[in-house]
C-alpha cells in the first residue's frame, strides 16, 4: 500500500538520503512536541473541567524554573537542527573538484542545457550515474529555479548572474525536473525529465545526439569572431589586458580595488566593460550588450577558463 502512497520521492542522488534522514529527525522532534502538547491540552481540559460553580482554580503565578526548562530544551534542539542543516547545505554549496561542467540557461518557459562535449538539449537532462555534475546557470529573462525532487536539490536561476549547483546521481532511472520559482504564465509547463544512465549508455546517447562544438571551442571561435583578440593579446602595445591564464586570479582595478576574475566578472566586463576597469588600461572597450546571447557568454567563460591555463580545466575532460 505504501508503494502507492509514498511519503518521500525516490532517493536518486548522493545527498537524497542525508536530507531524508534530517527530515525524519525533524519529524520525530515535531511529532513528539505536537503529541505532547495535544495530550497535555486534552488531559488538562478533561481533568480540570469546570465542576461546580463555586469551585475555584489554583493561584499560580508562574515558575521561572519551568520557563528555563522550556526555553533551553527547544533551544538545544533547534541548535542541533541548525548545525545539521547548515553542514548539509554547505556540502552542497561547495563545488566538488573534477565535476562534469554543464551549462543551463533558463528562459520562459524552457530549460536549455549544454553538455561539456557540446550536445544541447531542451527541458531534459541526460547524465551518467556516479559522476558529479556541476551546473553553471543563468536566465535570459526572469528568475527560474532548477529543481529535481529525487535529488533533493534546487537552485534559483537568476538573470544577470551565474548560480551554481552540483549533484551526483546514484540511481538509474528517469526523474522529474521542475521549475520551482514562479516565472509567468506557463510556469507549470517548464518541466522536464532527468535521465540517469550508465556511463556506456550516456556515451551512446551523446554519440546519437547532434554534436555541436564544445563550449570551449565555441568560446574560442567567438573570441576571434567578436575581435576580442585584437585588444586582449600578449603584445606590449595591447589596448586590453591579456586574458591568458587569468581566470580565477585576482586583478587590480583602476580604482585600486581588487576583484576575482570569475564568471560574473567576465560577464559584467562583456556587457558593461567600464564598470570595473583593470588598472593601467583606458576605458576603450565597447559594450557587447545585444550582440552576444547568454549562451555565447557562457561559452566565452568556458574558453577563458582554459585559455592559457597550465593545467587542463576541470570538467572539460573529467575522469
Amino acid at each position, binding site marked *: 500500500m505504501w508503494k502507492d*502512497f509514498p*511519503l518521500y520521492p525516490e532517493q536518486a542522488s548522493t545527498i537524497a538520503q542525508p*536530507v531524508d534522514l*534530517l*527530515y525524519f529527525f*525533524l519529524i520525530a522532534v*515535531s511529532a513528539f*512536541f*505536537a503529541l505532547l*502538547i495535544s495530550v*497535555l*491540552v486534552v488531559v*488538562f*481540559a478533561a481533568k*480540570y*473541567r469546570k465542576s461546580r460553580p463555586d469551585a*475555584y*482554580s*489554583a*493561584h*499560580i*503565578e*508562574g*515558575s521561572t524554573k*519551568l*520557563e528555563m526548562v*522550556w526555553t533551553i530544551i*527547544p*533551544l538545544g534542539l*533547534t541548535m542541533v537542527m*541548525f548545525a545539521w*542543516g*547548515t553542514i548539509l*547545505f*554547505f556540502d*552542497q*554549496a561547495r563545488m566538488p573538484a573534477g565535476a562534469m561542467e554543464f551549462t543551463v540557461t533558463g528562459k520562459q518557459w524552457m530549460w536549455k542545457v549544454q553538455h561539456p562535449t557540446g550536445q544541447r538539449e531542451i527541458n531534459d537532462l541526460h547524465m551518467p550515474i556516479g559522476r558529479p555534475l556541476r551546473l553553471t546557470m543563468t536566465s535570459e*529573462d*526572469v*528568475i527560474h*529555479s532548477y*529543481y529535481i*525532487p*529525487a535529488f*533533493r*536539490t*534546487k537552485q*534559483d536561476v*537568476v*538573470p*544577470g548572474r551565474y548560480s551554481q549547483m552540483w549533484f551526483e546521481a546514484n540511481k538509474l532511472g528517469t526523474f*522529474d525536473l*521542475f521549475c*520551482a*520559482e*514562479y516565472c*509567468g504564465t506557463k*510556469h*507549470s*509547463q517548464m518541466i522536464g525529465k532527468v535521465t540517469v544512465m550508465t556511463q556506456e549508455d550516456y556515451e551512446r546517447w551523446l554519440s546519437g545526439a547532434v554534436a555541436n562544438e564544445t563550449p570551449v571551442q565555441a568560446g574560442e571561435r567567438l573570441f576571434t569572431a567578436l575581435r576580442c583578440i585584437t585588444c586582449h593579446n600578449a603584445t606590449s602595445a595591447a589596448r586590453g589586458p591579456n586574458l591568458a591564464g587569468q581566470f580565477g586570479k585576482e586583478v587590480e582595478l583602476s580604482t585600486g580595488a581588487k576583484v576575482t576574475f570569475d564568471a560574473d566578472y567576465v560577464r559584467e566586463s562583456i556587457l558593461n566593460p567600464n564598470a570595473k576597469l583593470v588598472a593601467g588600461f583606458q576605458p576603450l572597450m565597447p559594450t557587447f550588450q545585444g550582440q552576444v546571447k547568454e549562451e555565447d557568454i557562457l561559452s566565452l567563460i568556458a574558453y577563458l577558463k582554459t585559455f592559457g591555463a597550465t593545467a587542463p580545466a576541470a570538467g572539460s575532460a573529467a575522469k
Partner: protein
Amino acid sequence: MKSTVLTPPAPTPHLAPEAKERTTYLTADYGWKSWLFTVDHKRIAVLYLISIMTFFLIGGAFALLMRAELLTPKGDLFEAETYNKLFTMHGVVMIFFFLVPSIPAVLGNFLVPIMIGTKDLAFPKINLLSWYIYVVGGAATLFVAITGGVDTGWTFYAPYSSTYANTNVAGTAIAVFITGFSSILTGLNFIVTIHKMRAPGMTWFKMPLFLWAQYATSLIMILGTPVLAITVLLLGLERLFHIGVFDPALGGDPVLFQHLFWFYSHPAVYIMILPGMGVISEIVACFAKKRIFGYHFIAFSSLAIAIFGFLVWGHHMFVSGQSAYAGMVFSFLTMLVAIPSAVKVFNWIATLYKGQVSLETPMLYALGFIGLFTIGGVTGLFLAVMGLDRHVHDTYFVVAHFHYVMVGGMVMAFMGGMHFWWSKMFGRMYPEAMGQFAAVVIFVGFNFTFFPQFLLGYMGMPRRYHQYNEEFVILNVLSTAGATILGGGFLMSICYFIWSLKWGKPATQNPWEAKGLEWEKAPTPPPTFNFPDGERIVVTEDAYAYTEEEAHDHVAAGVKK
C-alpha cells in the same frame, strides 16, 4: 471638541443617565453619516469588520476556485493565466486586506481603549482616516481584479513583475502602497494610546497580554510597513519609467528586490500572528478561570518576536543566490525566533493546569489554535534548516506551513476573539451550540485542506502550478475536499453571527465572568465613551485576577495552597 480627547473622561451632558433605555455606541446616533463620519473607535472597528469580512469572502472565493482547478492534474478549468491571477489575487487580498488588519483593526480598535480604561484612541480622526485609506486601497485592488487582475504572485518578484508581466502590476502596487499607510496609522495610534492614555493604576505590567501583543504588532507596523512602501514604489517606478533598480537588463539586481520585500514581509507574518497570540492569552485565562501562567514571559516574548522578526528575512532566500554564509546567519536567527513562540505555547498549557476549564466556542478555537500553531511553528523549522530548505523551498510544504500559521493560527484566533467579544460589540450572544459545531467543522476542514499539502511538498510538487503530474492527484483531491468543508464552516459562522444581531439572546455585561475592564467596567454594548458617565476608572488589580480573592482568603484563613 478638538482638544478634549486627552482629558480624563468627563460627564457628557448629551447622554441622559436617567433614560430608561441606556444609550450605547450603536444607538447614540443613526443614519449613514453617523457611521461614515464617526470618530468612535468602536464604530470604526465595526466599519473595519464589515470591510475585512468582505475581502475575506472575496479571497476565500478565489481560494475555492483554485482548489477546484487543482482537483485534476490537467489545467482544464481555467487558462494558466487565469489560474495565476487567482492565486495572486487570493494572496494579495488575504494578506493585505484581511490578515494584516483583521485583529488589530477590528478587535484592537474596539478593545485597546476599553482595556486600558480610556474613552477613545489618542487620535480618533486619524483612526477614521486609516479606515478610509484602507477602503481606497481596497477599492483600487478590486478595480484591478475586475479590469483584468494581476499574475505576479503576492510576492511580486522582479524582474517578472517589473518587466515581463503583462498584467496590471502598477495598479496593484499602488493599491498595496496606499493600504500600507492605513497600517502605519493604526500602529501609530495604538502606540501613543498605550503609552499615554492608560487609566490611573494601569501600569505596564497590569495590562492584559492582548495589549502587549497589540503594542508589539504596532511597533512592527510602523517600522516595517514603510520598507514595503519603498519597495513597491521602486517596483512601480521601474515598471512605468524603466528606472533600473531590480531588472538586470536595466542595471538592477533582482535579488535586491527579495531582500527589500522580505524585510517587510517576514515581520508582516508577525503582524499577522502576534495579535492572535494576544487573543489566545485572554481566552485561555478566562476559560481556565485562572491567572495566566508566566505573565512576564508572555509579555516579553511578544517583544522578542517583534525584534527578532526583523532579523530573519533572509531565510526566504537560501537558494536565491544569497551567500551561503548570510544564509547561515539567517538560519541561526530563525531558530532563535522560534523560542519565544514555544514559550508562549507552554505557558498557555500551564495555565490550564489546576484551572476550571470550560469549553465554550472561544475556548475551542483557542485550544485549536494551540495545536495548529504548534504544527505551523515546527514545520517552519523544516524550512529554516538550510539543508532541508533546498528541497522543500517553493513547494507545497511552504504553502502548508504558512497556512497552518496564518489560517490555523491567525484565523482561529480571530474566530475565537470574535466569539469571545461578539456580545460586547453587539449586545447579543451568538448561538452556542452552532458555534461549537462550526468550530469543529472548521478544525476538521482545515486539517483536511492543508495537511496533505505537507506531503505534496515533500514529494516535490512546486507551488503555483496550474497543472501537475499524475502522482500528486490523491493528495490534491483530499485538499480540495477539505477546502469545501472549511469554506462551509466559515459560511455557517458568518450566517449565525448575522442572525444573532437581531435574534441572538441579549447578553449580560459579563457573560463569561471574565476579568478585565471591558467586562467588569464597560456596559454591554459600551456607551460612546466606553464607561458609565462619571465613573472614574482606577485599576488596582493585576490582569487575570481570577484567583486573587481565594488566594487572599486562604492566606488569611491560614489554609495551605
